[in-house]
């Protein structure tokens, strides 16, 4: 069911993770992803998993919600893993027609899959614990220096925040339109690729029209509430770095260093 999709949702809460400055969390996420790509060997992966598990635990985001975010990506993860199984050379342990499965292939597939799962969970943890407004404020503030080279930082941040705000609304809408077309006998489940692609038109066209209508109405509503770009705009919640943020950032900086150590220990 589409309504179970939890992408980009924010689960309000008051845990230490929720209360961190969004900039801290953004920087942390970037560090985490970098570390993830640096990691080699079981020990490094175990360390990354511990870090992720610790953050999930501290944020009290339910495992179910995280699983919900991974579910839609499952196909991509599987395809990546399967490609790794088939296209890594090494010690052959099984043979299927012209394809050979290697030990190295299986290991590399396992690493690839866990890397993707951790990548997705890590990023979703950010959106689950940070309100989109805080998130975009954070991005705007971090990218602030780029305003000097005339990058429309505020506009980009605002666009992102609105996109996040409308994800659940549009998912609900898609669900509704799908049901309405099914009630008129639309069939999305059978037939070849072309037939299925064609069957999507009755969903996509109304969805686009509705998205445009919403965008139009939202623009009028925003103007009516005196929106006139980022100039002279103030904030109810000013971003403020606390000692907790400093501690978190220090820990974050230590992570890549730790990974280098664990990489060496696993002999990679």
């Amino acid at each position, binding site marked *: *069911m589409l*309504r*179970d999709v939890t992408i980009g949702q924010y689960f309000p809460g008051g845990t230490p993770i929720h209360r961190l400055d969004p900039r801290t969390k953004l920087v942390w996420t970037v560090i985490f992803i970098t570390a993830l790509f640096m990691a080699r060997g079981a020990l490094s992966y175990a360390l990354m998993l511990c870090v992720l598990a610790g953050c999930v635990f501290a944020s009290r985001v*339910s495992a*179910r*919600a995280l699983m*919900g975010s991974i579910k839609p990506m499952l196909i991509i993860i599987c395809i990546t893993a399967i490609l790794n199984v088939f296209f890594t050379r090494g010690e052959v342990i099984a043979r299927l027609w012209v394809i050979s499965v290697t030990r190295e292939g299986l290991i590399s597939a396992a690493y690839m899959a866990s890397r993707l799962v951790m990548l997705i969970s890590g990023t979703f943890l950010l959106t689950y614990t940070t309100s989109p407004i805080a998130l975009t404020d954070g991005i705007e503030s971090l990218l602030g220096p780029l305003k000097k080279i005339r990058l429309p930082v505020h506009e980009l941040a605002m666009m992102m925040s609105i996109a996040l705000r409308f994800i659940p609304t549009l998912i609900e*809408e898609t669900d*509704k*339109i799908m*049901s*309405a*077309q*099914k*009630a*008129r*006998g*639309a*069939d999305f489940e059978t037939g070849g690729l072309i037939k299925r692609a064609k069957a999507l*038109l*009755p969903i996509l*066209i*109304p969805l686009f*029209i*509705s998205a445009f209508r919403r965008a139009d109405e939202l623009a009028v509503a925003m103007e009516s509430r005196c929106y006139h770009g980022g100039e002279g705009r103030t904030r109810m919640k000013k971003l403020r770095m606390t000692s907790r943020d400093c501690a978190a950032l220090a820990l974050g900086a230590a992570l890549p260093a730790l990974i280098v150590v664990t990489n060496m220990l696993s002999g990679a």
Partner: protein
Amino acid sequence: MAPIIKTEKITHVYSTGTVFEQAALTGVDFQAERGEYVGIIGHTGSGKSTFIQTLNGLIKPTSGTVFFDGTDIRQSKARTREVRFKVGLVFQYPEYQLFEETVFKDIAFGPKNMGLPENEVSERVREAASFVGLGAGELEKSPFELSGGQRRRAAIAGVIAMRPQVLIADEPTAGLDPSGSAEIIANIGAYRRSAGATVVIVTHNMDEIARNADRVAVFDRGRIIIDASPAQTFARGEELTAMGLGLPSAAMIAARLRERGLRLPDGIITAEGLRAALREFKKGAGGGNA
């Protein structure tokens, strides 16, 4: 004859196994006869929207069975698909589902999916359009050139064109002005009379139910708690008010008059009913005991 549609103890739980798990329906028994006009009331979240989607198989209840014309709609895949066309469902704000270049093509979407031949499709489109008062001129227009009310009627025609034996509509008049609403109710009534179809309408408009419905099903927290004639239903005013539901204006005025000592018969729910009762009262008063 078996009821045209019937549910036996249907229960539905949303998002089973997730944080959002919630029961939308618990053990709902319901049936509607051929040609019957049933009104469904209940506040938002009472389960009525989920319920109507189980009737044409769009939502598969977690447990329980839905029967159409005596057989289980999930007997086979073919049966489920067949029922999809026999139980037509008009969603809330159905004009947002229009997608074709012309109104004609959009109304033809359902009949085409039924696999009907070209000439039969166009016959049905014209017939359905005439039920909702759209002429040949409108059929060739883009749906987006129509007025709001016309667009809504075009969307309803898209369901009528399947010639459903049961026509279900979820708040078909929501957001329309009084004359637009009246037209839609008249269109649905015209289809019902001509096709002998059963009509199930979800609505918040109690005056409309009092005027048209044969029977009312009141939903509350996933159950049907009242299933009776409009007069019997609206006699339970206190219960309905406690659920956040209104009463027809005539029923409210009659209740107020009774409170002030006027002896009026029970079961007054329409203006016509109240007028008749007051005429009687006047006659009685003039006839001697004044």
